């Protein structure tokens, strides 16, 4: 049987009671950074990079070469 202090300090134990509060500052900062990261990822993806390399570009030539077992120095 864990003590009250032990159970409170362990990860995964029940949270402490807290009254309803406005959104904390760290959540706002996290949200802004998250949106910026998503925007950067989307910009990279739609600018022709990202996973698009699979659909067109230099991947197809190598796929054909791989099928024929060609070795390129």
């Amino acid at each position, binding site marked *: 049987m864990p003590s009250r202090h032990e159970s409170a300090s362990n990860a*995964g134990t029940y949270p402490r009671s807290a009254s309803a509060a406005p959104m*904390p500052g*760290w959540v706002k900062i996290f949200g802004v950074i998250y949106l910026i990261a998503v925007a950067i990822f989307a910009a990279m993806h739609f600018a022709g990079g990202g996973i698009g390399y699979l659909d067109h570009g230099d991947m197809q030539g*190598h796929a054909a070469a*791989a099928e024929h077992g*060609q070795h390129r120095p």
Partner: protein
Amino acid sequence: MTMALDLRKFALTVHVIVSVGWAGAVAAFLTLAVAGLVSPDIQLVRASYLAMDLTYRIVVIPLGLASLGTGLVSSLATEWGLLRHYWVLAKLVLSIPAAILMLVHVQPVGHMAGAAAATMLSSDDLSGLRIQLVLYAGAALLVLLVATALSTYKPRGRTRHGARKLEQRNHPTPSASQTAGATRW
């Protein structure tokens, strides 16, 4: 819906093990991706991409899916809940896109390994894809480190849903207390 303490601890232990393992596997993947990008040794480059494919399919993906699954179980089956605390919600919005991107990248990693197995890659070959693998592996590792920090620090803050649930628990209405009593196990 809550679990017994022993079961809860077990679920949390499994979640920590697979999550840390996931981060470690991604770190190894990033190391191989960097080696494949910058190494002048052709044999090392080929070996790196072949090892990346194997590591990705056998270690990274199973651990990633297990981490997501055990995280969902650990949150839903305890008082933490999935949508009650901002830190849990933040981990969720980090983990789900990371898992989706991880699954989407099976094909590029496989193609890269196939090309490395069949051809002698020069430093210019597939440079875009090689850079992409390094960037995405680095971003994935950063996401996993942030998720680990969130789990460790558990920054305070309840969502509206969490505040409402807390209010219901502290001041239960007769009908709400009957419902809660009926569903608890």
